[in-house]
């Protein structure tokens, strides 16, 4: 009898790919090199089952997998070689870690007998990535390979999601072992809490019904846990006004009458005033980032706080929380809704008491709406409003970092979850374009835009070749102010306009550059050209790079100076 068949013996490289198939992976983003050649050779046999997207830089692979994961809710998978391949992924991994994005990154490693020898293309990948992964592994024995992959996918996608890295020495990929993919995982030290504590929840419900000026402050956790429907139901049930962090945008419909925009440093006047005047704030899957709170002692100074989060270490980190609730946002909101379902009398009286509060917030909204002044130069905000209009608000939008990011957050109205992809935590310039590529691969039928800065786009511009190779109709809208605009803005406001090294004096001709890559380049230099350029771009089923030559010294308002209370807004 054929023993090999009976025992299902396989080389490590095949075990890896069979494991990926067991995990339902059909797309990976990668770049080959010596340490992963065995895996690449095996991938060649699986071309019909697994789509490998060849990027042009490993940072691009990680961001693309990240964009894929954020847009689809699935785990993004990356495959790169040892040494420089692995170190090139670090920024992408740290970006995903900060924003709780589920990734599994496979890095090649030198053969086990050479580890620690300063071998060719050796780097201590596990050491380097330890502080920016949810967990990482060095597989030193082929016996552990399948189990490790199983655990990695489980850890990446459960609890507070995050990137998990598996470092695999080359000899492991060639040695042979029985393939037996585990059914489950056994992790003594890992068991996320999904359901909120009943007693805490009944406190929340009681206080919520008694509160005079309640407010929901939502973050990325709402999107990660797919809790938008529950959130909407709760807000509508008792007329709760909602404000969102950058990461939470899309978690609640921006055009909903109960939505008052983003809060924080570049938040709306209404949102920041509401936070400061509320008497009861429920933070949902948000983490009180310093860009949100401003001077933390003043944040929500008149309010009691509830904080719902799956990660206990997020709760009470920066702000004192009266009622902490550890749990999955969706599960917790469902429990709260269930508890409220028997309280219709209280609800109608509490709704009645809220009218004044909602009116106050609406007055703030009308006193100081988001605005900008038009003239004969293109205003960045106008470009974004037009993109919103012409896509009917249904595009997936990624951004780079800087003013382009903040204007997008302010002027594109995100109405559904997983449509806004941005590096909120790490603030990584160069994120948006590869993330858009990943999103387009996850959602081939959707319109996908990267709203970019002229500085940021140059950080991963090489991925134009990837977009062209896979014929992805991603659109890049460069808000070209010939400046590292956000840096310039800070220099204008806090450094007496000393524009120290923030000018982009030698930007390439982005139209020609796009053409050189085999993409389409378009340009608008006057306001009345903007609409045509966007329409034209939308009609082309190819990657298009649009160069919007905009006002150079436009600033993002409102703005709260760093460390100031968020009511201290500089307005337009």
């Amino acid at each position, binding site marked *: 009898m054929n023993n090999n068949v009976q025992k299902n013996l396989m080389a490590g490289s095949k075990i890896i790919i069979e494991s990926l198939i067991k995990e339902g992976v059909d797309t990976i983003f990668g770049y080959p090199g010596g340490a992963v050649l065995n895996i690449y050779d095996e991938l060649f046999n699986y071309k019909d089952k697994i789509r490998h997207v060849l990027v042009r830089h490993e940072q691009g692979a990680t961001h693309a997998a990240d964009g894929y994961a954020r847009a689809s809710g699935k785990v993004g998978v990356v495959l790169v070689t040892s040494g420089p391949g692995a170190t090139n992924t670090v920024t992408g991994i740290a970006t995903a870690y900060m924003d709780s994005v589920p990734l599994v990154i496979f890095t090649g490693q030198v053969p086990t007998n050479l580890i620690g020898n300063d071998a060719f293309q050796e780097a201590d990948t*596990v050491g380097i990535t*330890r502080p920016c992964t*949810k*967990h990482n592994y060095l597989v030193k024995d082929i016996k552990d390979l399948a189990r490790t992959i199983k655990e990695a996918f489980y850890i990446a996608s459960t609890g507070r999601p995050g990137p998990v890295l598996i470092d695999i020495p080359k000899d492991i990929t060639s040695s042979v072992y029985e393939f037996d993919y585990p059914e489950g995982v056994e*992790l*003594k*030290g890992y068991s996320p809490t999904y359901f909120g504590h009943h007693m805490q929840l009944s406190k929340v419900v009681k206080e919520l019904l008694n509160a005079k000026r309640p407010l929901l402050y939502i973050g990325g956790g709402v999107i990660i846990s797919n809790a938008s429907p529950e959130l909407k139901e709760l807000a509508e049930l008792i007329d709760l006004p909602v404000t969102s962090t950058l990461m939470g945008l899309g978690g609640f419909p921006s055009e909903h009458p109960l939505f008052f925009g983003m809060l924080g440093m570049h938040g709306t006047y209404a949102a920041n005033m509401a936070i400061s005047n509320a008497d009861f704030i429920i933070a949902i899957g948000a983490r009180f980032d310093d860009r949100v709170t401003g001077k933390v002692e003043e944040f929500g100074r008149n309010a009691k706080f509830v904080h719902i989060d799956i990660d*206990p*270490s997020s709760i009470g980190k920066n702000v004192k929380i009266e009622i902490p609730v550890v749990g999955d946002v969706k599960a917790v909101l469902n429990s709260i809704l269930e508890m409220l379902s028997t309280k219709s009398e209280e609800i109608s009286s509490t709704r009645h008491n809220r009218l004044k509060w909602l009116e106050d917030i609406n007055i703030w909204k009308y006193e100081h709406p988001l605005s900008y002044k038009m003239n004969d130069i293109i205003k960045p905000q106008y470009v974004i409003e037009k993109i919103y209009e012409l896509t009917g608000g249904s595009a997936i939008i990624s951004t780079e970092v800087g003013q382009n990011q903040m204007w997008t957050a302010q002027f594109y109205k995100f109405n559904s979850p997983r449509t806004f992809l941005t590096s909120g935590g790490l603030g990584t310039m160069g994120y948006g374009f590869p993330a858009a590529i990943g999103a387009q691969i996850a959602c081939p039928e959707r319109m996908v835009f990267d709203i970019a800065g002229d500085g940021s786009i140059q950080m991963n511009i090489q991925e134009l070749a990837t977009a062209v190779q896979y014929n992805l109709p991603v659109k890049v809208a460069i808000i070209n102010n010939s400046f590292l605009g956000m840096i310039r803005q800070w220099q204008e406001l806090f450094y007496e306009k000393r524009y120290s090294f923030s000018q982009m004096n030698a930007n390439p001709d982005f139209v020609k550059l796009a053409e050189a890559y085999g993409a389409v380049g378009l340009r608008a230099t006057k306001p009345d050209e903007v609409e045509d350029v966007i329409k034209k771009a939308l009609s082309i089923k190819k990657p298009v790079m649009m160069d919007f030559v905009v006002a150079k010294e436009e600033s993002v308002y409102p703005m709260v100076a760093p460390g100031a209370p968020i009511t201290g807004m500089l307005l337009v």
Partner: protein
Amino acid sequence: MEKTHILSILVENEAGVLTRVAGLFSARGFNIDSICVAKTLDKNESKMIISISGDTQILEQITKQLNRLINVIKVQELTDEDSVVRQTVLVKVNADETTKSDIVRIKDIFNGRIIDVSRNSYTLEVTGSEKKIESLIDILRPLGIKDIVMTGIVAIQRAKKLN
């Protein structure tokens, strides 16, 4: 508020766990005063006893983050009241005809042992609370300490007393 804390951390006995745990402290610029790691009855698990001084609130945050590590099974803060804390010291002290008997007396007072003897030195082994070890050192210092090695502290929770 600055205070000394003792954390008892049950972890999986795997490569890299110590670095993960230590990394959470070093990332915040905390200096670990002492650390002891050894396996438990279950050979797949180790117990770490970490003693550290620092801001109570920040340590609370670190404790939560320790719990977040996949290989950490349980984190417990041990307090002086509810636990027994011990440390062992090996100290090599100058010994001549005039001081030998003093050293032996000190050893007896501290319930220690003499574990090595040479013509001009005695090496003592003493186990006790941190305070006890400190006072031993104070007493031996005038005699001339040639070398000293201390373990980190180990600590165990006291059994619950029945009312």
